[in-house]
């Protein structure tokens, strides 16, 4: 079967051998050049992303001094610790709540910006995107100072209204609230920009048609805007879910996981265990727990990209 298929091909090649061979060398040169151009990228990804990713799998099976193979011992140890389950719970609460609010606020603000005359939109968009531009470590410091228990601006203002001092980062529930609030502050502008770009791409005719059919504003959003923006909403949410789930800066600076580990998420706890507690294998096992959710999100994003690739 194979022979039969190949034979005629060979005949063609032999027939125009000279033409083919020059073409083939050209092809060869092109693909060689292309390969050389992508080589640094391939090396970078292979050595500094793929290899460490698998290396952390290996690390997770070693003991603290990294000399003895312990199999799944690190995971067994983690499962028995209460702090680990606390971290799992907190990571989920943190990521899901923050992403939902980021998405909602982004959606609402994008609508308001879209609503005003086009001339002024640039100015507002510029102001609203500032939280995304400032390095998170720097802006979290400002939040930490705003949350300061004794000299802080928030408690001063609340005291003015007769509300007692709020332990913004001192009490477990409030600390979780503060961490999520800062995360929403940093992340909502990204959603706003994405949704604004998507809103601009919805054709006006659809709204006109909806208005003629007597749709109110809610129906216009539900039946026109949301279906048209479905792709952008999905991909932005997944992106944000990954970034939020793997967040480090905000929690680290604001609470450093405290009080009593009640704001630790996977990344900060992995840092605490792996670098500060110098138990690299245990830290690696903790951070590996981020993989499943990342993998799920990646599969969905990839499916979306392939779908759009096929459409275009």
């Amino acid at each position: 079967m194979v022979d039969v298929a190949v034979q005629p091909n060979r005949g063609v090649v032999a027939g125009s051998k000279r033409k083919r061979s020059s073409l083939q060398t050209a092809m060869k040169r092109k693909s060689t050049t292309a390969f050389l151009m992508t080589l640094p990228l391939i090396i970078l990804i292979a050595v500094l992303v793929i290899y460490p990713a698998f290396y952390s799998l290996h690390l997770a099976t070693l003991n603290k001094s990294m000399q003895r193979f312990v199999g799944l011992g690190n995971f067994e140890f983690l499962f028995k610790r209460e702090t680990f389950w606390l971290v799992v719970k907190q990571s989920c609460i943190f990521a899901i709540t923050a992403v939902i609010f980021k998405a909602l606020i982004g959606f609402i603000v994008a609508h308001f910006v879209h609503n005003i005359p086009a001339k002024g939109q640039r100015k507002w968009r510029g102001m609203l995107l500032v939280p995304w531009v400032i390095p998170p470590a720097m802006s979290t410091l400002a939040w930490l100072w705003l949350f300061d228990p004794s000299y802080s601006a928030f408690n001063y203002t609340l005291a003015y209204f007769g509300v007692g001092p709020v332990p913004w980062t001192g009490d477990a529930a409030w600390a979780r609230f503060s961490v999520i609030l800062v995360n929403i502050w940093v992340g909502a502008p990204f959603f706003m920009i994405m949704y604004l770009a998507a809103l601009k791409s919805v054709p006006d005719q659809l709204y006109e048609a909806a208005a003629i059919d007597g749709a109110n504003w809610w129906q216009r959003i539900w039946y026109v805007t949301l279906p048209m923006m479905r792709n952008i909403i999905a991909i932005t949410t997944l992106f944000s879910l990954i970034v939020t789930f793997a967040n480090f800066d905000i929690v680290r600076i604001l609470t450093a996981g405290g009080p009593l580990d009640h704001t630790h998420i996977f990344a900060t706890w992995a840092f605490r265990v792996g670098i500060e507690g110098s138990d690299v294998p245990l830290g690696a096992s903790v951070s590996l727990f981020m993989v499943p959710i990342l993998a799920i999100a990646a599969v969905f994003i990839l499916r979306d990209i392939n779908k759009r690739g096929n459409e275009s």
Partner: protein
Amino acid sequence: MSTIAIDKSAPNRKMKYGSMSRDRTWALRWSYFFLTLFAMFSLLPPLYMLVTSLKGSAEISAATNPWWVFSPTLSNYIEILTSNQFLRFFWNSAMVSIFVVTITMLISVPAAFALARMRFWGSATLATGVFLTYLIPETLLFLPLFKMFATFGEFTGIQLINKWYVLLIVYPTLTVPFCTWIMIGYFASIPKELDEAAIIDGATWIQTLTRIFIPVAFPGIIAATIFAFTVSWAQFLYPLVFTTSIDQLVLPVGIITTLIKGDVFAWGQIMTGALLGAAPPLIIYAFLMDYYIAGLTAGATKG
């Protein structure tokens, strides 16, 4: 009879128009109202940084209204800008960011060109792989990378941990995948006739890239450069893990480790440092906002 009917309908219609435009005005007013609220929420921390940075330490610990500066002073700025330590952080940050941007562009532009235009075996898979790499967060890789560099130091005697240039090796893992991805998008949007014409005229692939693709996709290159700069300037986890000596620190880590001493927070200086640390990205953003936003939206909307 008919005249009455017309008379009746005319004001009706007018009223309807009137009410619609009134609705529209109210919607506008509400939009402005809420936008003002959200803008205040967005600008609150940076403005508070500015307010605090202008206060002396006596005023910061006084029980006066924290939202206002009663006796403005530049002492924090003078102290920060004349301290060798802080200038060292700033210098380290600038060096790291400039080198990382250069390395990133040198790697990602040719790679994006090859992936967008020169189809070769596995190029489609590689493009998707590049995108997937972008999704791997740094919090997953810092521990294995830390161990890798430590082992590397043991075997070769080249100590990478606790040197600022180790960041030049790790930052590209954050910047290159995304920059390559958005450059693929920009290059793919250039009409094929353009490079076909160049090839027919006898240009090599390298010439096609430097003479045609880079000039035409220049907005994309600016967007990618801004992205790479912002990411390397703002990165916090890697420098925290890989550098510890004071003279090797970059700005964000430097401010946090040197100005917070135990429970003593020098808030005036911290806020001044944070504001100065936030300034370079903010200035770039102020001047190149459109490129910034183009880069931001390109990642998810092009594909």
